[in-house]
């Protein structure tokens, strides 16, 4: 661990992951350095998971599973690809993956922003509960499955069964959608929706970079919500 002015640098070939995460967790009780640098992540799991402090962590390379999981307040930037479950259950803050993300990116996240510069694979935003996810590339199948709140903005294409069993998350896809999941439908894009999308793009640092008119909006048909007496015989 080297102190360089206001930055703490951790080399995961020299220091343990447990020490890094403990030091980051300690910041919730005793505030310390604002800037952290993680060298040689080498695909390790759970890097920078569970931070609860307004700090910036730059991870210089590829990470394994559950990077920045449960994040609160922190900005975690991954300068590489991320494995399964990046920013899983994030509460607030920003997680920015400069490369591709694997499956279940932003799963169950309640808040904050997740940006993926490359592609995200299957089940991106599964059971999302308020997070704003922006993927500049494509997303895989079953994305936003059971999405409950928040937004998923995709500049590329979406795989099969987009928004299966979705509740109220708002999906904006610029490219093609292979197929829609149960109860997910295309919705009209009104001025309010365009303004909402523009706000999300701006928050992700992409104001003016893409035309909101190029996106289609998808969401819940709300047919799975309620018990229908007509179906009573089926139970």
């Amino acid at each position, binding site marked *: 661990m080297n102190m360089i002015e206001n930055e703490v640098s951790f080399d995961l070939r020299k220091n343990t992951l447990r020490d890094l995460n403990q030091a980051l967790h300690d910041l919730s009780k005793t505030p310390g350095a604002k800037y952290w640098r993680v060298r040689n992540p*080498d*695909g*390790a799991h759970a890097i920078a998971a569970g931070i609860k402090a307004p700090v910036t962590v730059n991870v210089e*390379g*590829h*990470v*394994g*599973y559950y990077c920045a999981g449960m994040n609160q307040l922190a900005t975690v930037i991954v300068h*590489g*690809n991320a*494995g*399964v479950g990046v920013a899983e259950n994030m509460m607030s803050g920003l997680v920015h993956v400069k*490369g*591709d993300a*694997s*499956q279940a990116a932003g799963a169950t996240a309640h808040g904050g922003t997740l940006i993926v510069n490359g*592609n995200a*694979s*299957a089940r991106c935003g599964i059971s999302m509960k308020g997070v704003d996810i922006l993927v500049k590339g494509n997303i*895989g*199948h079953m994305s936003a499955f059971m999405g409950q709140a928040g937004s998923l903005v995709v500049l590329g294409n979406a795989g099969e069964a987009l928004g299966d069993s979705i509740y109220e998350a708002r999906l904006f896809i610029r490219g093609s959608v292979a197929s829609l999941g149960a109860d997910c439908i295309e919705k009209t894009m009104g001025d309010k929706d365009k303004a909402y999308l523009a706000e999300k793009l701006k928050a992700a640092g992409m104001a003016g970079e893409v035309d909101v008119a190029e996106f289609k909006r998808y969401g819940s048909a709300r047919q799975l919500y309620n018990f229908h007496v007509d179906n009573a015989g089926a139970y």
Partner: protein
Amino acid sequence: MCGIVGLYLKDKSLEPELGSMLASMLCVMTDRGPDSAGFAIYGQGNPDQVKLSLRTALDFDVSRLETELADVSGGGPSVMKRATHTLLTIPASKEAAVRNAIAARYPQITVVGSGTRMEIFKEVGLPADVASRFDLAHMTGTHGIGHTRMATESAVTTDGAHPFSTGRDQCLVHNGSLSNHAGVRRMLKHEGLTFTTDNDSEVAAGYLSWRMQKGASLGEALKESLGDLDGFYTFVVGTESGFGVLRDPIACKPAVMAETERYVAFGSEYRALVNLPGVANAKVWEPEPSTPYFWESAA
């Protein structure tokens, strides 16, 4: 769980390092499968000869094998012992006769694979122990695949260790489980294939061998398996000149690939690839579900 790795070299100057690179990849995947480990290496070969990979025993007397198989193998076979395995090199035309003789005279020996270039070694135990027992780090070749096993579908035995080979120079490692392996096994038996274990992954290997026997290329065989094999799988497959990867349509099992001008590498997790030369600047991506990936060199 299980961990799988694969490495296909494009740069000949890396060939002396194949074993050490594969050993490092295999050992990193210990947390994904500490029950057993195995690997296949594609090394030098003579097209007129075939190498039989035999599981013998630590105290097995190979000189006896040399003498006793001379009558069926057209002279004394070349024999090399590595721990519990023995590599027998014989004229390709004598393979069936030698296999029959082994089955009749040495019921305790299992033939785990055969090929012009392929050699297979697998055992129960920690991947690092298995790799060092067979001295993987000093093996050379053009490509290889490896597996660390967490047993789910069948017992922790050497029989259940991967890779599985069901055709000459063909082998497969598998992460996942197949739900229709019993039915596919019955169909393949009807087609004349034989299986030596009750393992689902051997059925996957057999399926691909069967398709390739029927004239399919490796890529075509992988594509066809998507329609006939049901379950969770990531396959990494080796052939004499090629290397292929396939994930099921749901892509439940993890996979990551890296490609540079010098090699193509596969790992269940990126961690398996971190010690490869130049991986920091490699193209790294997650293979798409239902999409065969394969590389083949001119034979």
